[in-house]
């Protein structure tokens, strides 16, 4: 079942999911605590930040015996302080996708814990840092002792486009068990001057070329919204806001 939630006027959100539900949560409140417990379900939670706010977000999630995708898409000019703690147990798997357009201060701290055996976590973070961006992204994958045959992979990539204030990405793995599969990867780069030249040689202005490159880097895969009746409208909304904020 598809559910769309706007957090406006709410500072707390509690979700218990035991069915194959899909949530799209528009974060439009400044202080927010989200707690969720997902059990025996195939679920998807997509957070979307479009409004320009000063957000303080705490996420506390428990995932048991489930197949879950969580996506965090922030294409706003919001100042963001986010702390995310997610525990994955009992053969559960989690795909965590995050996409940040950064032109202000964003401080994100993610901890995903494989808390029992046969659990899997895959984290994929992408960020584009524009002029004046200050981004601190700490992403920790933890596998506790006894969580045998568990998997924890994470990758973070950042595209720096402009004079940023500070960009710091910390991928961390804390492994307490030996029978596991784990990795982390991080890349950071600037826009390729040759690509920019190629686009300009077709008459595309530099600003438009940058807009195309940034949106292509951050626009979520359509598959993330697969089956959602408002899929196109939501993707358009994200793209429009992203384009506004890249200009």
């Amino acid at each position, binding site marked *: 079942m598809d559910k769309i939630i706007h957090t406006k006027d709410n500072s707390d959100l509690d979700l218990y999911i035991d069915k194959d539900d899909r949530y799209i949560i528009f974060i439009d409140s400044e202080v927010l605590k989200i707690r969720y417990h997902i059990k025996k379900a195939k679920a998807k939670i997509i957070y979307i930040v479009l409004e320009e706010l000063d957000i303080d977000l705490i996420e506390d999630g428990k995932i048991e015996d489930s197949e879950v995708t969580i996506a965090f898409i922030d294409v706003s000019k919001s100042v963001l302080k986010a702390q995310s703690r997610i525990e994955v147990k009992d053969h559960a798997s989690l795909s965590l996708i995050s996409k940040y357009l950064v032109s202000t201060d964003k401080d994100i701290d993610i901890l995903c814990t494989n808390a029992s055996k046969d659990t899997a976590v895959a984290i994929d973070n992408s960020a584009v840092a524009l002029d004046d961006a200050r981004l601190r992204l700490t992403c920790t994958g933890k596998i506790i002792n006894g969580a045998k045959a568990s998997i924890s992979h994470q990758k973070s990539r950042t595209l720096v486009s402009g004079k940023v204030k500070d960009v710091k990405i910390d991928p961390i793995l804390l492994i307490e068990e030996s029978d596991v599969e784990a990795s982390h990867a991080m890349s950071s780069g600037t826009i390729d001057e040759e690509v920019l*030249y*190629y*686009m300009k*040689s*077709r008459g*595309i202005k530099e600003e*438009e070329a940058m807009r195309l*490159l940034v949106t292509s880097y951050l626009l979520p895969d359509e598959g993330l919204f697969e089956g959602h009746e408002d899929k196109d409208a939501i993707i358009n909304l994200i793209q429009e806001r992203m384009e506004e904020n890249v200009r």
Partner: protein
Amino acid sequence: MSSTLLIKDLHVNVDDKEILKGVDLEVNAGEVHALMGPNGNGKSTLLQTIMGHPRYQVTKGSITFDGQDVLTMSVDERAKAGLFLGMQNPGEISGVTNSDFLKAAINARRKTPISLFNFYKEIEGNIKKLKMKEDLAHRFVNDGFSGGEKKRNEILQMMILKPKIAMLDEIDSGLDVDAIKLVADAILEEKEKEGTGLIIVSHYDRFFGIIKPTHAHVIVDGRIVVEGDSELVEKIDKDGYDWLYQELKIHPVKKEERPLIFSLGTCALNPRS
């Protein structure tokens, strides 16, 4: 309107080294200029300089296009004025689809954005003409394309953007015999239809045999040392460049060969030997 690209006494440095040492060239609408010469002697440098690549620094001379000073124009302004460079190694733009890329390029030349219907009508006919894969519009620009697909994509862009002067840098390399004919025919058709002036760099007589240059120029060591027409192209295809070097007592620039460096590393050394 007839268009003229006029280059006078052009000197160009790349990384503080002079590559072009005084090039004069005039290209008018409807003309086909073959630009020939050994590798590393300035052909691509000339084309990239006309297009405005930031790595190429003009130290002397002028480039004008229909009377406008090209050297004061940005790269995108040159493109919108009607110059086009089909590149030897076109860039790959992962994440940007061909349709978004082409739409942006078309809309850059229009006051109001092209409608989706007209856009697809425009590209689909040309995709068919070039026998490209139907899903091209939805693929990322040149990402994962074979050498031949990239070159066809350059020609597709040329056909859609309809430049007044198109410069094609080894556009036939990476194409098989059938594809060379297909691409050459498409270029010729475009020239006839739009009156496009062409500057073509190629090492293959087969390509020039179809395109039939009206003018030919040979660049050696940053200068145009001989000019002619399709007969010159045929002679070079038959005899190479040595006769030119002897007649004119000139030497081509040889590509720098980097020495092969081997290192065993300290761990491979036996300290007892």
